[in-house]
């Protein structure tokens, strides 16, 4: 009997044929090639933006208004101000609504409104942003006949809203149920439990969502193109056409002038530094132990 066991065991390792070993190695290599293929473009894009953008950047570039083609000294000051203005307006609108909806998704998860709304929210996250721009164009620009930072901000708020609602909902769901029960057991009403205990515990996730949404809005072009248009001056109010970094890059990159194209790379470097800064901040500090808070979802 003992002999039988030994022979079965010794037969096992030889059962992996050469062919299966080759296929196994081949697939490992293919998988590694896939990783390399995905990382190369990222390095190329970042490298090119730094190498081509750096020469265009100077104090004057950041503080001056744009100039005509081939006139030196042009800058992106109004575009930087415009981008921050519109993202600011968007944040004012989308943060309260998004956080509110997110809390509802998490604390009243079984409600019918919650189910439908969070599904709609997920769908909205994947919407082409140009459709949101068209929507704002139809409801604001068509009646008022005036491109403005205000309309641009509203369009961006619709970009930010689903991201904030989703990350808020996801991160508050991670708050342990025992904390809510402990609070309620002390006789603290539910609204206070939600506002103090649940939000207090999950506030890092909330902040992550808001920062990710701000980063996303900062990099949006299409909705602003249709609603805020652009301008070569500082806007006197939020109800005037307003320049932004992204539309500046689009216009200058597609222009035939070499000096403008260089400035487009410079503006791209400024934009990418802002965006990567926000994203790395999220990744390295507070985003690490959270799941489901990725930018593109």
């Amino acid at each position, binding site marked *: 009997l003992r002999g039988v066991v030994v022979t079965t065991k010794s037969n*096992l390792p030889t059962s*992996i044929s050469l062919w*299966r070993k080759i*296929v*196994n190695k081949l*697939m*490992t290599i293919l998988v*590694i090639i*896939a*990783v390399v*293929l*995905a*990382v190369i*473009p*990222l390095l*190329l*894009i970042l490298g*090119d*933006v730094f190498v*081509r953008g750096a020469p265009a950047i100077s104090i004057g570039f950041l503080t001056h208004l744009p100039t005509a083609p081939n006139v030196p000294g042009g800058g992106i000051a109004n575009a930087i101000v415009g981008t921050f203005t519109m993202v600011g307006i968007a944040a004012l609108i989308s943060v309260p*609504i*998004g956080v509110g*909806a997110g*809390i*509802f998704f998490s*604390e*009243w998860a079984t*409600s019918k*409104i*919650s189910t*439908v709304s969070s*599904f*709609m929210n*997920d769908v909205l996250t*994947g*919407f*082409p*942003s*140009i*459709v949101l721009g068209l*929507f704002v164009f*139809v409801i604001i620009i068509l009646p008022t006949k005036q491109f403005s930072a205000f309309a641009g901000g509203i369009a961006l708020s619709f970009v930010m809203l689903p991201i904030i*609602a989703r990350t808020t909902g996801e991160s508050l769901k991670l708050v342990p149920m025992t904390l809510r029960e402990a609070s309620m057991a002390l006789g603290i*009403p*539910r609204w*206070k439990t*939600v506002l103090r205990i649940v939000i207090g515990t999950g506030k890092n996730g909330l902040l992550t969502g808001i920062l990710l949404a701000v980063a996303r809005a*900062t*990099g949006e*072009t*299409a909705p602003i193109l249709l609603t805020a248009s652009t301008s070569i001056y500082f806007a006197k109010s939020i109800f005037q056409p307003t320049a932004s970094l*992204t539309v500046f*890059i689009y216009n200058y*990159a*597609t222009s035939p002038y070499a000096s403008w*194209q260089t400035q487009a790379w410079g503006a*791209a470097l400024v934009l*990418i530094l802002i*965006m990567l800064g926000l994203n790395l901040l999220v990744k390295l500090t507070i985003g690490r132990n959270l799941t489901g808070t990725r930018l*593109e979802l």
Partner: protein
Amino acid sequence: LRFRLPRGDTILKILLAAAALFIIGLVIGLAVELYLGSASSIFKFGPSFLVGSKWQPTNNVFNALPFIYGTLLTSAIAIVIGFPISLGIAIFISEKLKSHQTFGYLLGTIVDLLAAVPSVIYGLWGVFVLIPLLRDYVEKPLHNSLGFISLFSGHPFGYDFLTAGVILAIMIIPTMSAVSRDVLSVVPNSQREAMYSLGATDWEVTQKSVLPYAKSGLFGAFILGLGRAFGETMAVTMVIGNIPTISSSLFSPGATLSSIIANEFSESSGIFQSALIEIGLILFFVALLINGLARLLLWRMTRGTQVKA
């Protein structure tokens, strides 16, 4: 006291429910307003808007087929290139790097950063770096050696379907690989162990037990990537040439649903503008369908595992 406490709860619940209802209202509002904005085009052209191939703003004739074709072709190129690569990254991180969590996390972060790069910067890079690269090292050699195939005929100029598809592939890889990664990471280890105990190699474990288990979730990732490719605007607008064309050549300039809106909207008015808004309405319904489908698939996948865990 007994009456005060429930009131606070009710007020909070109403406020929060209003925020949640706002999102539902927004989606409905989108559909209604885009319909109203495109009404004159819808009534003038009817269903022929979707099947005709003419786009002549000077004659007030507008059909969307060239853009539907452009969107489908560029998305198909993007998926063919992007999906296998994304799946490869997901397998590498979740299967090969299982015991090196930190490195896997780092690699995932690097790929995620690709998603953080704004569309317009992909476009800028596409115009000045990718177009010359593809034109001189891919399109011209292909055209010279295989030009008799209609796919590679025409004049390799750089501003064409192929470049747009390649840019899209780079842009959808982060989305698809991130979702695939999440899906593969929820496959229970018992699935893998069972396969290993039968003497399977690493690849056989991945191929025969991990991938089939994650099938519906991976399909969700595929659909989400497709959705992103369909809606992507600025980068495509900058590299595709923006000439409404239906051509079997990958080296032909074209236009997509979103690129034509971005490129022509500011110069449009009247029925022309209405037609562009109708294109937006088409995009809206396509996005609704694709994203809804993807979410349902992903929901089913993650809910299933939660029950098992």
